[in-house]
């Protein structure tokens, strides 16, 4: 493996700004308890715009989980939950979060205590049980936002069901914060969210260019603001900056991976503790991961004329809440749009909704596009389920087969 710590793909200057943005955000969140600012823990696919509009600080255990994974502190936290009796088969984000609540461990010394919780099941069913545990542990109320699974198309009655929950959520937040919901403020936040999402989509689209100015290993890092803080002005500003840098790269002919020879699509959550090494492995062979199914999940559309209905629609349609047939369509459209040579799937032991069906998806994608697929087995933060030599072997063999 190439030297630890040295990145073979080109560094993005905006990274510093993002680090500052995220640091400020975590400092604000960590210092909120004891002030009048309320903290709400929210699942990664949850409708954060309501929280921002109510001036509540959203805290994302999953984003924190990624940080613990990247800093390689996740296993020790997960072990705490395992000692408490939680199964090793449980999602490692859930395990490490349960562990960090007890020990205050991890790269930022633990998450701030929540005042209430917002749990949306558009990503999985695990979050419900996980958040119920958190709710009991901290003795705080939880709002459960239920998004029906989409098999073929979104049904009108399902949308109405979700829209009504938006109304209930507003009521819940008013009660928890003691403040009144302002439609005006919400419209403002929704507008900014739309703008940030649009910029983020444009950032990701720059990878359509050959050679690509961006790899998904960059996108995994730079997605943090769109996940956590969309709806705020800083995020809009940040993605403007990032987009400008990517456009400048295209103009100057700078590619993310030196001598791009292969273009690949990535599926599933990153392997956080191995990102740098994997990024380097692909880069050393001239392979650029030009798109992925993960970062594009935060490209939700909200229409300002019908904010609640369009939000209901957007939050119901996320990648993990749709059938395999619809997933296949999305993967194929990424392969076509980014003119990719193949697909790399991370079979993630933690995330069942993401990983179940991957072998079928792989087969269907190959049948329809003729593009090869490599499946690697790992876990997003539990490195005990990862074997470096073996994953490397698979990836290298895959790249060799593309070469011949």
């Amino acid at each position, binding site marked *: 493996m190439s030297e630890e710590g040295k990145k073979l793909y080109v560094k993005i200057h905006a990274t510093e700004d993002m680090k500052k943005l995220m640091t400020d955000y975590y400092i604000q969140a960590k210092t909120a308890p004891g002030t009048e600012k309320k903290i709400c823990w929210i699942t990664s696919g949850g409708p954060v715009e309501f929280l921002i509009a109510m001036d509540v600080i959203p805290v994302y255990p999953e984003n924190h989980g990624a940080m613990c994974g990247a800093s390689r502190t996740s296993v020790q936290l997960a072990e705490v939950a395992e000692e408490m009796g939680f199964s090793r088969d449980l999602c490692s984000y859930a395990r490490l979060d349960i562990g960090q609540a007890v020990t205050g461990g991890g790269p930022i010394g633990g998450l701030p205590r929540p005042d209430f919780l917002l749990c949306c099941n558009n990503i999985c069913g695990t979050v419900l049980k996980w958040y119920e545990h958190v709710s009991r542990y901290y003795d705080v109320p939880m709002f459960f936002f239920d998004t029906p699974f989409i098999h073929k198309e979104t049904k009108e009655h399902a949308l109405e069901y979700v829209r009504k929950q938006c109304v209930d959520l507003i009521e819940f937040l008013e009660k928890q914060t003691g403040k009144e919901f302002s439609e005006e403020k919400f419209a403002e936040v929704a507008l900014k969210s739309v703008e940030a999402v649009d910029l983020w989509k444009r950032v990701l689209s720059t990878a359509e260019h050959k050679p690509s100015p961006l790899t998904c290993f960059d996108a995994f890092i730079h997605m943090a603001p769109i996940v956590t803080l969309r709806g705020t002005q800083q995020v809009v500003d940040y993605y403007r900056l990032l987009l400008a840098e990517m456009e400048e790269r295209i103009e100057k002919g700078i590619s993310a991976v030196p001598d791009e020879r292969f273009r690949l699509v990535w599926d599933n959550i990153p392997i956080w503790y191995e990102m740098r090494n994997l990024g380097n492995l692909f880069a050393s062979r001239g392979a650029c991961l030009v798109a992925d199914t993960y970062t594009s999940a935060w490209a939700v559309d909200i229409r300002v004329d019908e904010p609640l209905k369009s939000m209901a629609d957007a939050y119901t349609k996320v990648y993990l809440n749709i059938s395999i047939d619809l997933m296949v369509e999305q993967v194929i459209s990424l392969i076509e749009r980014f003119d990719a040579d193949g697909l790399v799937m991370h079979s993630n032991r933690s995330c069942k909704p993401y990983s179940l069906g991957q*072998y079928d998806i792989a087969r269907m994608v*190959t049948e329809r596009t003729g593009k*090869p697929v490599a499946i690697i*087995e790992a876990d997003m933060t539990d490195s005990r389920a990862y*074997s470096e*030599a*073996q994953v490397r*072997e*698979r990836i*290298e*063999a895959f790249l*060799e*087969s593309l070469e*011949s």
Partner: protein
Amino acid sequence: MRVAGVDIGSLTAKAVMLEDGEIIGKSLVMTGHNSRLAGRRALDLALKEAGFPEDAIQNIVATGYGRLSIDFPAEQVTEITCHARGAHKIVPDAHTVIDLGGQDSKAIALDDSGRVVDFVMNDKCAAGTGRFLEVMAHALEIGIENLGEASLQSEEPAPISSVCTVFAESEVISRIAEGVSKVDIAAGIHQAIASRIYAMAARIPLKERFVMTGGVAKNIGVVKALESKFKTSFVVPPEPQHVGALGAAIIAAERASVKS
């Protein structure tokens, strides 16, 4: 042109020396705990057999899990590509290679020209590998080299439901305690391996002809069990353990001629 291929696996390290496409030296040593030394010893032994010094070699390709820790200059290529190339050389119309090595198992689909079109590996688990068979042979108190022949005498293979090495071992022990004959247990073990390998291999396109490589191919019981499970016959090269090293040597020759 003289080239070498060195395949450093988890259990054994192999080297093959080619002169103008002909094998003129080969070797096989135990890997032990030091794969760097094992690679070196395999190379030296093959050189000795070929009868020429290391600097007479124009190019070397190293493969296998130990390929990153060698002390001689070599290009590195994965076992998948090397096994495919080696099998294609020995059996030009091979389209499926089943490789059962010391600690992993693979199935590789080839196109007409021997290129890899798809592959699957089972590397998390010892089931079906040389290590698995070693544990089973030990539990049965049969020498590993006799396990295959012994199982052929079975008339009623004992079903072994688990392919997990740990569970299968205790299952074997309880079968012995129940008084089931060793040959029937051995045959049951081979059937369990065959089912396991089939389930893995079925994920890639399976096409005639089938070639089996790796050390486990020397176990006739496993070969027969695979043949009945896959409902086809397998070609087993005379030296199945050397196929990866042979492929590596062939690639070394190709790359050397591109360079020169």
